[in-house]
């Protein structure tokens, strides 16, 4: 069972890069790492997903070291609208592993001018 650990909160200024690390020491061979963003009064929204090395899309990058025991979500040049809670999710791709899906407790990111 890949228990995940994230920092509770992080503060940043507009225009800076924010890096949030999630620890998942017991990650299984078939597990993927997914990150979600959640604003108040809304459900989480998918940001990015990866298995190893680096993944980049239009909003974020995900860095996964070779041992896969941690992962880092990188938000480049944050703006006030990036203030949200960010969740790390570790789990397998097949339905027989979904019962063990583990979200982290979430990291509150606050961006100030």
């Amino acid at each position, binding site marked *: 069972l890949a228990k995940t650990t994230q920092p509770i909160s992080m503060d940043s200024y507009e225009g800076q890069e924010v890096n949030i690390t999630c620890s998942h020491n017991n990650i299984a061979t078939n597990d993927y790492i997914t990150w979600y963003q959640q604003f108040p009064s*809304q*459900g989480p929204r998918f940001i990015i997903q990866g298995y190893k090395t680096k993944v980049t899309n239009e909003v974020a990058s995900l860095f996964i070291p070779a041992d896969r025991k941690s992962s880092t979500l990188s938000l480049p040049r944050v703006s006030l609208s990036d203030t949200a809670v960010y969740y790390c999710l570790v789990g397998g791709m097949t339905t027989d592993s979904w*019962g063990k899906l583990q979200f982290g407790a979430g990291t509150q990111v606050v961006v100030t001018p």
Partner: protein
Amino acid sequence: DVKVTQSSRYLVKRTGEKVFLECVQDMDHENMFWYRQDPGLGLRLIYFSYDVKMKEKGDIPEGYSVSREKKERFSLILESASTNQTSMYLCASSLGGQGSYEQYFGPGTRLTVT
């Protein structure tokens, strides 16, 4: 645009009542999930379903049951609500098959049991 709707945004029930939380998705997704969200604990999976009439337990199924009679609808049932089930409940759906991991969430139902 994928839309996941939940029957109520806020619900107040008494201890011992039977509670139904309904979730509907409009994108023909095979997979549906129910989570509860509590401060400091993140999201915890209660049940999921990968096909009509199929259901599987998640991390915390005790005190809950589910029903999926139609592909687009997934119901969470609290047979006898208790105060420790006061929480935010989130429904999600995703495409079927391996590699389909992007879950689309509804806005949530905040349930208070008194």
